């Protein structure tokens, strides 16, 4: 080469200089566990499905969602959304409205008739599922996905369990329930209604390789209240179940509900809708001790339901017409327990509804050896298997936390364990990545955007009708809400690392393919990790 005047060396590129050798620490891409996912009892990959919703691809988002939970339209209405309690966005403005986006996706799927992705090849194995509540439906769905034949036996004339015979219509319209159950049947789940299982041992002989029990807890707990005969003392589960019959239960003008859980609230709100002039909840303790969720108490109070705190019913069926009850005032002792005060008040009541919780009916398991029952609950291992090999259980009968979401999670967990068990293996859950805590993120990069509130049915209408109370999001605000997600711990392709590296040592692989470090040149400064908004890069010490 002819070199210019006074030039002795050929020009070269600094790429010859591998500055990677300077490094004492190195950046690595990671996927951390978003706190929303960690808090979801159904084990949903929330960040994962929101990722698709953010770009407006709702169908892909729905498919990602139903990988874990086949009932998003239901869940988007009745779930108490512990995910939102864990959401990192609450440290910025307010939690992402995960539940409302879930409902939006579920409703979109129902509107457009989206179907589940095809199941795995048929295994030839048959699993009996007892009960068509959320636990049974979830187990059956996941078993079907894995290629097994799931056969549900259900005692009731309609499927859904407490989702149909407990949760009132104004919170879960039955068309929504029916559509999601129908999708499961179309998927290949076999359902036999009005088929009560009385002997599990016997059923096992009938060609099933494993059993999943999801019979729920339906026997109402009673409290001893001396009562004359005129007064009507009913139990809440029976009242709510009666709502599904042709003739609504007759509760009268003045209804007193005894209890402090969500069921008590639901019955009181139902009574009001049935025309009761007064619907009164009597509860032993104080509001902060009440197991019912705050927002439900709030909605009930708005609808004109009154609550007598620190009170017990000591007698019913009093007076000439037998429609008076006696209520005793309580006081909290130093340990926070209610104690009687001897102060009484007489109240008029056309009916008294007891909402004191339910027990599971385990009679169908009487002759199954190896089962352990503790405090009325069947004991299971980490894979939801009972003491009897091949018999699994989940939902209300197997846990203290009794929600639709927990039941769905149990069903999924059990299905995975059953799948492994059928192959003579034991299911081992993959190790959980470390939590994407807020302090691992760089919140600077997120735009400010407060939460979209779902419309609430106005009060007059909801006192008298069974129309759904909470409205849904529409396309624009669902998109907005999804985009409030910060993608905690998982790369969302913001290009920050690619941009901020002073050494041009980040390789962009293209849309959907994420990034790679060029360790030949990366000096390990750590800027990429500090400036990654979502905490998807960690810095580790370089070996040697």
């Amino acid at each position, binding site marked *: 080469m002819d070199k210019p005047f006074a030039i002795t060396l050929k020009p070269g590129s600094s790429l010859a200089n591998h500055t990677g050798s300077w490094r004492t620490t190195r950046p690595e891409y990671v996927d951390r566990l978003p706190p929303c996912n960690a808090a979801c009892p159904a084990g949903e990959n929330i960040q994962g499905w929101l990722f698709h919703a953010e770009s407006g691809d709702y169908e892909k988002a729905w498919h990602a969602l139903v990988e874990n939970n086949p009932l998003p339209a239901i869940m988007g209405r009745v779930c108490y959304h512990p995910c939102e309690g864990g959401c990192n966005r609450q440290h910025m403005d307010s939690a992402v409205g995960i539940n409302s986006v879930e409902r939006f996706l579920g409703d979109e799927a129902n509107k457009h008739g989206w179907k589940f992705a095809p199941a795995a090849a048929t295994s030839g194995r048959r699993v009996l599922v007892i009960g068509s509540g959320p636990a049974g439906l979830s187990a059956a769905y996941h078993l079907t996905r894995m290629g097994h034949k799931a056969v549900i036996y259900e005692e009731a004339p309609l499927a859904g369990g407490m989702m149909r015979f407990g949760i009132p219509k104004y919170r879960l319209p039955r068309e929504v329930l029916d559509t999601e159950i129908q999708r499961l049947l179309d998927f290949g789940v076999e359902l036999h209604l009005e088929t009560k299982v009385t002997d599990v041992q016997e059923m096992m002989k009938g060609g099933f390789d494993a059993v999943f029990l999801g019979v729920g807890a339906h026997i109402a707990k009673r409290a001893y209240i001396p009562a004359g005969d005129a007064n009507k003392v009913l139990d809440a589960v029976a009242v709510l179940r009666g709502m599904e019959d042709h003739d609504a239960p007759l509760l009268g003008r003045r209804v007193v509900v005894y209890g402090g859980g969500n069921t008590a609230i639901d019955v009181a709100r139902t009574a009001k809708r049935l025309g009761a002039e007064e619907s009164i909840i009597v509860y032993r303790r104080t509001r902060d001790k009440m197991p019912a969720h705050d927002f439900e108490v709030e909605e009930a109070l708005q609808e004109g339901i009154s609550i007598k705190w620190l009170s017990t019913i000591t007698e019913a069926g009093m007076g000439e017409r037998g429609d008076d009850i006696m209520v005793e005032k309580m006081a909290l002792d130093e340990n926070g327990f209610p104690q009687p005060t001897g102060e009484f008040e007489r109240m008029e009541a056309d009916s008294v509804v007891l909402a004191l919780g339910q027990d599971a009916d385990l009679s169908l398991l009487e002759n199954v050896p190896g089962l352990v029952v503790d405090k009325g609950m069947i004991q299971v291992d980490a894979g939801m298997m009972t003491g009897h090999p091949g018999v699994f259980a989940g939902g209300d009968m197997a846990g203290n936390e009794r929600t639709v979401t927990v039941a769905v999670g149990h069903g999924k967990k059990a299905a995975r364990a059953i799948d492994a068990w059928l192959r003579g293996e034991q299911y081992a859950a993959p190790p959980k990545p470390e939590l994407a805590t807020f302090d691992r993120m760089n919140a600077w990069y997120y735009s400010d955007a407060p939460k979209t509130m779902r419309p609430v049915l106005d009060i007059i209408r909801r006192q008298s009708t069974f129309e759904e109370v909470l409205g849904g999001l529409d396309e624009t605000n669902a998109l907005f809400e999804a985009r409030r997600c910060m993608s905690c711990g998982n790369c969302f392709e913001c*290009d920050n690392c690619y941009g901020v590296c*002073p050494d041009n040592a980040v390789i962009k692989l293209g849309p959907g393919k994420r990034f790679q470090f060029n360790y030949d040149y990366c*000096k390990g400064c750590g*800027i990429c990790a500090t400036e990654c908004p979502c905490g998807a890069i960690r810095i580790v010490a370089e070996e040697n």
Partner: protein
Amino acid sequence: MSLQPVKFYQTGTFTVGNRLLAPEERSVQANMQRTSSLNSGHRACQGCGEALGARYAIDAAMNATNRQLIAANATGCLEVFSTPYPETSWQIPWIHSLFGNAAAVATGIAAAIKVKKQKGQGGDVRVVAQGGDGGTTDIGFGCLSGMFERNDDVLYICYDNGGYMNTGVQRSSATPPAARTATTMPLGPEPGNVFDQGKFVPAIAMAHEIPYVATATVADLRDLEYKVTKAMGIRGARYIHILVPCPLGWGTASHDTIRMARLAKETGIFPVFEAEYGEVKSVLAIRRPLPVEEYLRPQKRYAHLFGKSPAVATIARIQALADKNIRKYRLQARQGEH
């Protein structure tokens, strides 16, 4: 507002890219085809703000000129770490001459291009001059002022790291008050650099009433790219002053470079604005107001302010300077702007 407000897109334009934005709405740095004018293998310290700022600015200028660009570089870190003969990290036509003459060299190139064009040779090639704060505010200042006064068709970019970093962190006229350097040691009654001296060249450039003057930091990429792009769309003398934190000279963690620039802007220490013909046209408002202490404390060059008994009076003087910037340039956070 210098930035296009966008609909709610999760991170809007705060991040480098954003998969929710149309490709043309993303930054130059997000583009896989960016020039990467200053390539890997350079010898800048870990986390160098100047290396980052230079790639940001020159990539944007390349993008704005259809890659028809020549850069003249003053002596300083940017030159030394990028071109140890015969290697270079520059992927653009680039020339280095002396410490103090980058503006004059660029003027000469611009003149040559003009003559060539008059003779019908060569296309519309544009010129950038760049240097450190020492090369700009001190030794190169005469050439720079001349370039302004003649309104030569050059964009001059100053990478301000607050000192002569390449030769071991000596004071320049851009070193901030109270900062420790090798020549302003934290000794005596008023430790560190003096107050009430030094120059703010963006204001002096404005006094020349040239078509365009702007400041920027490596913490606001979209703003920086917007300004470089705008500058390349204008003929005549233009000046952009970019704050580029220096982990070595400031005594900050290498991973905090962008964070420090962001703190300088958010505390009001460094006003980010643009001016046309001597008049301020827009500012980048503070988003989350912070006291200057947040900016000072992580820097070892201010460690003497945070000894056993903090130098409250000195910190208050620095706060007063920041407050003055906020008043003068109207930087206070505004509702609805973020």
